[in-house]
């Protein structure tokens, strides 16, 4: 049993919040460069250039890439041989978020109650924490700072098994089409298929965190990813909705077995400012 003090968790989360918000990951930068080469529309090309220029400026000046520094979504892989000591793990994560957002001059964007006064909690807590128990003695922490604009354009549906692959494809296209320029394309489409009503949304979000350029290990999912990317880009929405060939940088599919009566589908859209950083303790 490995002991891990909560202070290390808080410190790591704090650092990841700042790094994620100020530094676009290399795989996203490379995908944007490929998109820039591929884009045929003049306005689209110009917008991708600005996005790349902005990423460089943010990194150089340690400024947040976007004013929407997001809901802090934390993905944990907790090794079953890790013993967290010194306090509560979830409190340590939120302490890290609080510190990272305050010290990093990041925007605090969380409303304390969703439909009453919507008062700002003023420290970006509470975060959303997803945890999986895995073998081993490591704690893996991933921080996704998820902007509201693209999140608002995300949708889920309980399709009929008879809707099949075609039903899934149509639902994705409909969702991306309705999102238009609001979701800050070129986006990453996280597609969850299967599981249950709650689990499918988690799959879609987890799909976003997969490195760009890495297809699904499941051959059927990988084919669906390729087909969908082509179709999504045929929608012509283009960078920020200004029209063009590149509406999405990638489609990532995560699937899971499901009930014989069900076909849950969730589409979680990630804007071009795809901010995800992880660490292993």
């Amino acid at each position, binding site marked *: 049993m490995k002991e891990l003090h909560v202070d290390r968790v808080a410190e790591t989360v704090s650092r990841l919040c700042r790094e994620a918000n100020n530094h676009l990951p290399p795989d996203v930068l490379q995908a944007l460069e490929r998109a820039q080469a591929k884009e045929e529309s003049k306005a689209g090309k110009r917008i991708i250039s600005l996005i790349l220029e902005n990423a460089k400026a943010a990194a150089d000046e340690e*400024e947040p890439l*976007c*004013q929407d520094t997001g809901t802090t979504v934390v993905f944990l892989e907790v090794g079953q041989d890790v013993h967290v000591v010194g306090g509560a793990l979830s409190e340590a994560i939120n302490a890290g978020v609080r510190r990272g957002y305050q010290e990093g001059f990041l925007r605090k964007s969380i409303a304390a109650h969703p439909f009453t006064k919507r008062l700002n909690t003023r420290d970006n807590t509470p975060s959303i924490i997803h945890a999986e128990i895995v073998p081993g003695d490591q704690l893996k922490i991933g921080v996704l700072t998820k902007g509201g604009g693209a999140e608002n354009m995300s949708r889920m549906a309980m399709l009929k098994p008879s809707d099949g692959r075609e039903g899934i494809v149509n639902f994705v296209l*409909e969702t991306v089409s309705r999102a238009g320029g609001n979701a800050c394309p070129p986006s990453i489409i996280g597609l969850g298929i299967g599981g249950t009503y709650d689990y499918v949304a988690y799959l879609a979000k987890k799909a976003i965190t997969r490195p760009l350029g890495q297809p699904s290990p499941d051959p059927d999912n990988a084919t669906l990813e390729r087909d969908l990317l082509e179709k999504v880009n*045929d929608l012509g*929405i283009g960078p920020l909705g*200004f029209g063009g060939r590149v509406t999405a940088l990638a489609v990532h599919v995560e699937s899971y077995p499901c009930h014989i009566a069900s076909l849950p589908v969730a589409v979680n859209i990630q*804007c071009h400012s795809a901010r995800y950083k992880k660490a292993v303790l």
Partner: protein
Amino acid sequence: MPITIQRETGLKVLTPPLADEEVLALHAGDEVLVTGYIYTARDAAHKRMYEALERGESLPFDIRGQIIYYVGPTPAKPGKVIGSAGPTTSGRVDKYTPRLYEAGLKASIGKGDRNQAVREALQNHKGIYLAAYAGTGVLISRNIKEVQPVAYEDLGTEAIVRLRVESFPCTVMNDAYGKDLFQMAKEQWQRVRVG
């Protein structure tokens, strides 16, 4: 103020207050620069302004001829005027927007498309809707030279502030003639139709 042309780029420069004739000289697809004073407002500030107008009260600033920018910036680091300051989704304030154009607003700046009611308000009250380039908040912050609080300071990042901007780059998405660049772009580039 009359529209001028920036010599280096050939782009039109808009300086509020804008009159009908300036708005009517702009068309969907025009790239423009905004220089001068503009006002920020997001969801919560819009709700308050809308409610004030409905009660017959005046707004915290004279809205006639002005430009509202939908933005909630990150906090300014020491020595900086403002943090990252790109546009937020315009559609969330569509409910309140026609009332503001009716009260004299001439332009709004945000990201994403507008609903039918807003597009009609632009035609009825001679207004325009501009898009700033979303997700380039660091670059945009360089065009912001001064920040002055105006109202609703309790709203924090959602308060109304007056920004002095210089050569703030935008594109006219919706003009006063009913043209919509989002729609035009889609028609030009789409190869597949959905529902």
